[in-house]
């Protein structure tokens, strides 16, 4: 059916930033994740863990704390001493407020969600706790708590809002919120496995409604304290390294801690004996999904969420809380941003809104790679066999007549991270944008020399509601746009007005594209549904109706990464090309749809089979799982594909070495 020469690219040296904080919002079932480069991502846990929003990072904005406040407001604070509120509609920073002190180490919203507590460093080592009132459009400093002799690294409110626990170095303080004075100072044992360590850093505290304080520290201990008497109730030594994070469930019957060894431990409050009302905290389950430090954990009602230096976001469902065996019951490990590109096949029109790490110029066979602070331009190589089909069998590697070249390394100015970038199909324009500025360059090719000319430097003005995904029709007549809220709007570019709106669907759009000639809009959603909508007819196409009637194959629906790119074959109008991180698929609309009994993925060629059988088993979904993890795949010409892979091993190889753990008692 289809035979392609595939440029298999593994030289995209992309390393995601480590995860620093996660914050779970119970009301909206959203998860905010901040990375060490200052990026903040919002995942919608209801929509199949789709990364629906993202705030670009900033060099000086290293987040140390992230929390949600009343009314779905998101705050972050970091080592630059600023408290930042994000605008989740416009997808920008709403404002940044100086926290009147040094680096912020920790931040916590009050149980009512109307107050914000910030601990920052004053002077060299002194720690102070400050209370801010959250007003409808800003935050206002209220007062200082008693100054402490050392840094305060963790904060936790008592659920009643009257007291707070603050973890410091070698001790835990309990403050009275009304008076702002420390009423207790609980000293923590420095001992670690019998050896006195220099300092015992309290990385995390949790204040339970019964007055118990749970602390995790650098000596590898999880300790339970009675806040009324300041006495140690119970101590669990769980790691040979730091325990860095803790999160408690809303019911206070379970909590999760993460260690620097990459292990996550689940603790549960269980009855001492069956039928007994006496309950105690028991370490129930250890999970080892990380290779490096688990810097942060969160506890949703049904899952344990952890993230750390190894850049994975791991969502581990609690099987006892999951009623139906579906998507939510599976372990999720999210490594790559859900990238998507907004291609513009013709002309110099560029619509760079969404983060797109890779774009390609088909005509010149160029690839543009986006990093946090620079861009790389590569020219693909070639083979003597190019263009002559039938020279190799499936899986053969063709001899290279010319290797890929690194043409350009373009550094950005300023501290802001690049949000998105794009190269025009003709290969003569490069555009990129940061949160506040837009840059356009013109490329001149003189044999092997390239000169770059800056054309435009515009300040980006923002709309009320940001658009997440755009698609332009090849003839330049139509623009499809999907915003943060549901629904895809189609605009007529000739008349600059709204043409129609695709009926709203519950799940966010992960990829959009308009087919040439037919102007059919293909939409992929995070629940793995794919729709085809005819823009001229303002209705779903017959094929789309059919597949909705019959339903997708169950294996198709069970994939756990979203479709990030859709494209079309110039010569075969019945084909739709799409891919997610682990598969590449060509949908042939002329073939029958598969049902649950047919084999969806057939990796082997149908050798020794008569054409009859082959025809009977052939179905519309042609899948290849050779390339993974697949960040980008597109058609260069009718017989050539480009696939950009980023093997996980390569990422891990670039991370700092993990803490060595002994294996097999050696």
């Amino acid at each position, binding site marked *: 059916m289809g035979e392609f*020469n*595939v440029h298999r690219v593994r030289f995209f040296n992309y390393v995601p930033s480590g995860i620093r904080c996660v914050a779970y919002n119970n009301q909206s079932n959203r998860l905010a994740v901040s990375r060490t480069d200052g990026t903040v991502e919002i995942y919608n846990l209801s929509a199949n863990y789709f990364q629906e929003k993202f705030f670009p990072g900033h060099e000086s904005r290293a987040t140390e704390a992230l929390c949600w406040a009343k009314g779905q407001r998101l705050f972050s604070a970091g080592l630059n001493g600023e408290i930042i509120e994000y605008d989740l509609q416009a997808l920008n920073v709403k404002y940044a407020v100086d926290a009147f002190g040094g680096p912020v180490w920790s931040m916590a919203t009050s149980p009512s969600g109307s107050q914000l507590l910030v601990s920052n460093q004053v002077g060299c080592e002194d720690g102070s706790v400050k209370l801010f009132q959250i007003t409808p459009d800003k935050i206002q400093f209220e007062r200082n708590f008693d100054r402490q002799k050392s840094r305060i690294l963790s904060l936790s409110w008592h659920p009643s809002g009257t007291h707070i626990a603050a973890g410091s170095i070698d001790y835990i303080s309990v403050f009275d919120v009304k008076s702002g004075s420390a009423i207790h100072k609980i000293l923590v044992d420095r001992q670690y496995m019998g050896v006195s360590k220099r300092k015992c850093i309290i990385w995390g505290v949790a204040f339970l409604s019964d007055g118990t304080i749970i602390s995790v520290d650098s000596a590898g201990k999880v300790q339970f304290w009675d806040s009324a008497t300041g006495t140690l109730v119970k101590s669990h030594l769980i790691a040979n390294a730091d325990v860095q994070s803790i999160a408690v469930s809303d019911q206070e019957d379970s909590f999760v801690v993460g260690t620097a060894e990459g292990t996550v431990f689940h603790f549960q409050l269980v009855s001492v004996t069956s039928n007994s009302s006496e309950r105690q905290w028991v370490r129930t389950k250890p999970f080892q999904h990380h290779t490096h430090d688990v810097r942060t954990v969160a506890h949703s009602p049904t899952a344990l969420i952890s993230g750390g230096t190894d850049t994975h976001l791991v969502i581990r469902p609690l099987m006892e809380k999951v009623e139906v065996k579906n998507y939510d019951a599976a372990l999720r490990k999210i490594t790559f941003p859900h990238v998507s590109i907004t291609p513009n096949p013709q002309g110099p029109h560029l619509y760079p809104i969404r983060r797109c790490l890779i774009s390609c110029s088909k005509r010149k066979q160029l690839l543009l790679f986006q990093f946090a602070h620079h861009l790389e331009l590569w020219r693909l190589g070639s083979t003597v066999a190019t263009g002559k089909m039938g020279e190799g069998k499936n899986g*053969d590697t063709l001899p290279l007549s010319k290797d890929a070249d690194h043409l350009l390394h373009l550094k950005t100015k300023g501290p802001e991270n690049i949000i998105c970038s794009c190269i025009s199909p003709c290969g003569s324009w490069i555009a990129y944008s940061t949160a506040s500025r837009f840059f356009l360059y013109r490329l001149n090719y003189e044999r092997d020399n390239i000169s770059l000319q800056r054309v435009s430097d515009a300040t980006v003005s923002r709309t009320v509601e940001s658009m997440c995904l755009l698609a332009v029709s090849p003839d330049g007549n139509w623009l499809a746009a999907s915003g943060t809220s549901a629904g895809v709007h189609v605009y007529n570019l000739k008349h600059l007005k709204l043409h129609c709106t695709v009926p709203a669907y519950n799940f966010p759009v992960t990829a959009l594209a308009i087919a040439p000639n037919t102007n059919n809009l293909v939409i992929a959603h995070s629940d793995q549904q794919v729709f085809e909508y005819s823009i001229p007819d303002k209705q779903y196409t017959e094929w789309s109706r059919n597949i909705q009637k019959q339903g997708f194959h169950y294996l198709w629906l069970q994939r756990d990464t979203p479709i990030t790119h859709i494209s079309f074959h110039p010569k075969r109008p019945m084909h739709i090309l799409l891919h997610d991180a682990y598969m590449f698929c060509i949908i042939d609309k002329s073939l029958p749809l598969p049902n649950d009994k047919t084999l969806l993925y057939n990796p082997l060629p149908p050798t020794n089979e008569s054409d009859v059988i082959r025809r009977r088993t052939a179905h519309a979904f042609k899948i290849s799982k050779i390339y993974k993890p697949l960040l980008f795949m597109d058609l260069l010409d009718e017989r050539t594909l480009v696939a950009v892979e980023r093997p996980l091993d390569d990422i891990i190889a670039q991370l700092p070495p993990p803490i060595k753990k002994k294996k097999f008692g050696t």
Partner: protein
Amino acid sequence: MAALEEEFTLSSVHLGTGPDGLLGVEQSDKTDQFLVTDSSRTVILYKVSDQKPLGSWSVKQGQVITCPAVCNFQTGEYIVVHDNKLSAEVYRIHSVQGTEPLVLFKEGAVRGLEVLLAEPQQKIETVISDEEVIKWTKLFMVYRHPVLIYITEKHGAYFAYVQTFHSCVLSKYTLLLGQEEKSVIQSFTASVTRKVISLMSLSSDGCIYETLIPVHPSDPEKSQKVLRSLLLKDIVSGSARNGAALTVLDRDHLAVLGPPLPAAKDCLSIWNTKFQTLQTSKELPQGTSGQVWYYGENLFILHGKFLVVIPYKCEVSSLAGALGKLKHSQDPGTHAMSHFVNWEASQGSGVGSQNSEQSKRIKDSEKHIEVELRKFLATKRTPEFHTTIGDVVIGFVARCKAEPSFYPRNSLMQLIQTHGLSYSLCPGLMEVALEKTDVQMLQLCLQQFPDIPESATCACLKLFLSIGDDSLKEADVSMDSVSDYSDAVHDEKMEQQPKILQNGFNPEENNCNNCDQALSEKHQDTREETTSCPVTPKRAALFRNAVLHAAYSEAFLLPHLKDVPAQHITLFLQYLYFLYLKCNENATMTLPGIHPPTLNQIMDWICLLLDANFTVVVMIPEAKRLLLNLYKFVKSQICICSELNKIEVSFRELQKLNQEKNNRELYSIEVLELF
């Protein structure tokens, strides 16, 4: 097992006892409190657990208490009689739980206390004849009705009177003393079952006799005679200064107070009447009053001037326990009483002459047991089946030990084959089988029991190695897996030794060249030797089916293996080596037959034997060739291992190279076809 615990003195203040000791110790209505009546004027209430008096009462000066104070359990009052007076002279007041106190007059009449108090001046009739004197009395409750017994004496003749109050019957029995007509009875005690009062008496000849008196006489009108029988012989010396006393502790146990030998000091001893064994004894060097009381779990004795309490404990008695005590009765605080007569001697002397008769009796009993057992095994198995058959086997073993000719072999085999037994359920069984050199039984045990201790395994091994071929021939040993191949052994040709060893090293280069050459001269012999089984098939079967499969822990087995004679070790090693060579004959490295020992088991045993006995075996000339063979074998193994390691490292390097090649491919153009 009956045992006496550490005594304690009830009161440090000594009691005003007369020459005859105390009048009595009686229970009060509280379990821990006892009334002690001394022979003068005082009654003291003691709380035993606190070892202190709670209260004391005295009669007026000039008055004398004449019988022990008792507690009226119905009212909680204490009753004491002074100067013998009530309506007539009182012998004793009896008070037990469940009935009103009963007053026994010296003339033999009995009255309830309430009747007496209601009508104090009533006439008390005379029951016994003029010169009869009441010696002892006791009140029992039989079916909730009181039964009173008292013993009278007249001119050396003893009479027992049993008064039942339910039917108001008084019956009189004459105690016939048998051969020892002239002996004086020093002390009585009695226990009661539903129908019979068992009266035990301690005579001046030092023996204890038992007399059985029915509670309900068949013919109350007639005066009846009861014969006493010897229960225990020569328990105390007849010439006790203060006399001797005895009291029944429970169904099988008696406490006897008195000097065991004429010159000895007083001694409290506990006897098992069922097995006629001394359970424990305690010397009382300061002398006693010849009185002993027993209530609850406490024995009360006047030791010197002090009333001491000796707690007594008795676990369920068994023959094994009883025998055990005889074997080593060295409990701390008690003395081994060598001067006590061996209990077997008191069994009577007729054993020897009845030998043939007895063996016939034993054979009959074995057959009977077998039949009964078959019936039992045919029934449905209950959850307690395992413990039940365990108890049965323990019973058998105990009897085997007691009666050397008794050995219910068939029954035991049958029981072992139920798969319900284990070593710990019947610890003595293998010991007995070892004693009887019953190899078949031992083989069966080794196969069936999961928990045989290493000492027992090793004892079996020793027996298997040392037992003569003649006696083996007679034994009916299970030959399950051995017979299959031992016949074919001689036909098979082994590969030549050096060829086997060539795996992984070059024999020419090894530094054992000389011995190799020496060996190759005799190569033909060696082959003969290693290919033929060094032991008879029956013995092989014992080793293979039993010993090699036994579970063991090296640390525990090694010390026992050291005791095996070196010749036997060599033989066993040869056999194991033979098995190893047999293993090597096929590709799967297994032996033919059903459930054969694995190669690992064989190797482990070789290592164990060598570990335990190497210094000895190395000195034996016959073992030299064997050790050399083993040495070469180990050497070749080491070579193979090192070669394998080299190969593994090479493979790893190749894999690494391969991976690097894959990794370096950052860019390629490939052909993709979609199906």
